[in-house]
């Protein structure tokens, strides 16, 4: 059985490590606890000991590679049978009926398999043996040879674009802030998104009176039953999800030669944390009531701040809402969270004078107003549906019919 050894979590703030030196190579026999590889992170060098005894099958990272926590570093074939099968070194290997050479490096294999491997240029160490005690048979070698001759699969590029950098000579008073892994990821994603999607923006002015009334009416009861304050965000989320149902083009991704309009409605909520921007995802947001959305948002935001989100909770969003909070200013255009096609950004809610018709007369009244700004990918979404979508969100918020 093979065991993959991953880069372990080396600390709460340690998200990645750099493979400094391999202390083993494929084919090496390792004991439990034997150091396998040295990994560096900042000023700390960590040697990873082997969790099992066995033979190193493959190294999955190269020296100098920087990998995330959880990335497999090497594969070890567990067990030490071929070693115990080797005669003690003091005795001559005088048992011709035992075909395996008395080596602790080479895997067990039949003579036919060895010849086939040599003929076809297959490394025995990479062949999974299906014979007794994992012995490699000729068929195993041929299967591996066929696999090796397959054209390599295209690999999705993980770093689509480099963050542009420039030379700068430090001036007195300048402060250098080291780039954290999260900062680097965010930077790369921002550049990638802007290069991929032509962003277009549109803004709606929303009268939040109706929402404010509902919220005020429910606030007390909500706090008592749910244990936290009801914010405006769940209302925006609720309206957005309903508008997305009616405008599936905004809940989409662009593929090479098609656009996929997604059935699932997983809405990411951009949350600022101490460590930077994270976007936990409310899954199947269209199946949740207002209270359900509020609970989901509260739970994700709280765990984002305490860094208790699992990686899965940050994946799979189909649309994103960015809520900059109290200091959101009038409005602003967010960058699309790829591979989504649009992002909605909330502005501040401020009482403003607006003109309304009262008893057939125009009048200036004071209303809580919020600006909602939509950034959309003009490759995928035309102006008219984008505006219709945003207008619909505004309608739903102003109608303020919410089922708690």
């Amino acid at each position, binding site marked *: 059985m093979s065991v993959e050894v991953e880069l372990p979590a080396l600390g709460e703030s340690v998200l990645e490590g750099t493979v400094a030196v391999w202390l083993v190579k494929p084919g090496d026999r390792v004991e439990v606890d034997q150091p396998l590889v040295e990994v560096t992170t900042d000023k700390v060098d960590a040697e990873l000991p082997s969790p099992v005894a066995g033979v190193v099958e493959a190294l999955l990272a190269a020296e100098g590679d920087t990998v995330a926590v959880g990335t497999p570093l090497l594969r070890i074939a567990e067990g030490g049978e071929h070693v115990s099968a080797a005669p003690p070194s003091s005795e001559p290997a005088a048992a011709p009926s035992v075909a395996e050479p008395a080596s602790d490096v080479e895997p067990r294999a039949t003579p036919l398999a060895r010849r086939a491997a040599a003929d076809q240029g297959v490394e025995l160490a990479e062949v999974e043996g299906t014979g007794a005690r994992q012995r490699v048979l000729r068929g195993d070698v041929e299967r591996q040879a066929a696999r090796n001759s397959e054209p390599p699969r295209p690999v999705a590029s993980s770093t689509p674009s480099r963050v542009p950098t420039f030379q700068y000579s430090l001036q007195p008073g*300048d402060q250098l802030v080291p780039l954290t892994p999260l900062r680097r990821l965010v930077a790369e994603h921002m550049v990638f998104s802007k290069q991929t999607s032509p962003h277009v923006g549109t803004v709606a002015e929303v009268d939040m009176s109706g929402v404010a009334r509902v919220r005020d009416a429910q606030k007390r009861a909500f706090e008592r039953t749910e244990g936290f304050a009801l914010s405006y965000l769940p209302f925006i989320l609720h309206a957005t999800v309903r508008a997305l149902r009616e405008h599936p083009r905004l809940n989409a991704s662009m593929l090479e030669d098609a656009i996929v309009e997604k059935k699932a409605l997983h809405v990411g909520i951009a949350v600022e944390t101490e460590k930077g921007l994270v976007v936990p995802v409310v899954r199947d947001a269209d199946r949740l009531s207002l209270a359900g959305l509020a609970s989901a948002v509260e739970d994700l935001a709280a765990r984002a701040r305490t860094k208790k989100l699992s990686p899965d909770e940050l994946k799979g969003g189909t649309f994103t809402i960015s809520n900059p909070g109290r200091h959101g200013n009038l409005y602003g255009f967010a960058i699309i969270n790829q591979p989504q096609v649009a992002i909605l950004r909330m502005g501040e809610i401020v009482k403003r004078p607006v003109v309304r018709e009262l008893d057939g007369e125009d009048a200036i009244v004071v209303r809580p107003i919020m600006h909602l700004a939509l950034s959309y990918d003009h490759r995928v979404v035309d102006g008219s549906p984008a505006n219709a979508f945003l207008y619909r969100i505004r309608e739903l918020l102003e109608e303020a019919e919410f089922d708690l």
Partner: protein
Amino acid sequence: MAAPCPRLLVEDLGRVPYAEALALQEAALTARRRGERPDTLFLLEHPPVVTLGRGSRKGHLRDSPEALRARGVEIFEARRGGDVTYHGPGQLVGYPVLDLSARGERDLHAYLRSLEDLLITALAALGLPARTVPGYTGVFVGEGEARPGHFPRKLASIGVGVRGWVTWHGFALNVDVQLEAFEAIVPCGLEGVEMTSVERELGAGVPADLPARAREAVRASFLSRYG
């Protein structure tokens, strides 16, 4: 009846050549991992030696290796992170061999921060307010953030290794080291870092038995945290 096993053994070794101290640490680390000895803090000082970490760039050495050797300075390539470091008489070197896993503290950066905190505590006991500088490892004195020409002065360097959650390597605190020795290198790859010592920072207030007091202060702060 067996004597109660201390959680942290502090061993005062005096002056030990770098290579010898390295071998000692390896042996202690192996024994610690087998559960054959308790966590240990080795306190010692080295004869003059320049160590090169894996991150070392040759340009960080101001003199040629030959010139350094001619002056009686040993050169050693250490299997650890970090850059060029000088060790010599007057520097209190500490090598904690701690099983972080057994302590339920499997967090390397937290450990690094803990070493900084313990040195700051020890320095406070000597009457010297020290601090960390965000983004850098080590213990510093002086106001202001890191910037060219105004880098806080460095009192202690830290470089840590861990094998299966047992630590080795550690810290070097400049107690009354000859600061001219640092002229031989550029400390830790930071152009313009000024090295300082407890002796220099305390100025007129230096007690006669400073090295012994510094050792005692470091021992006490480590025992309060890991003992």
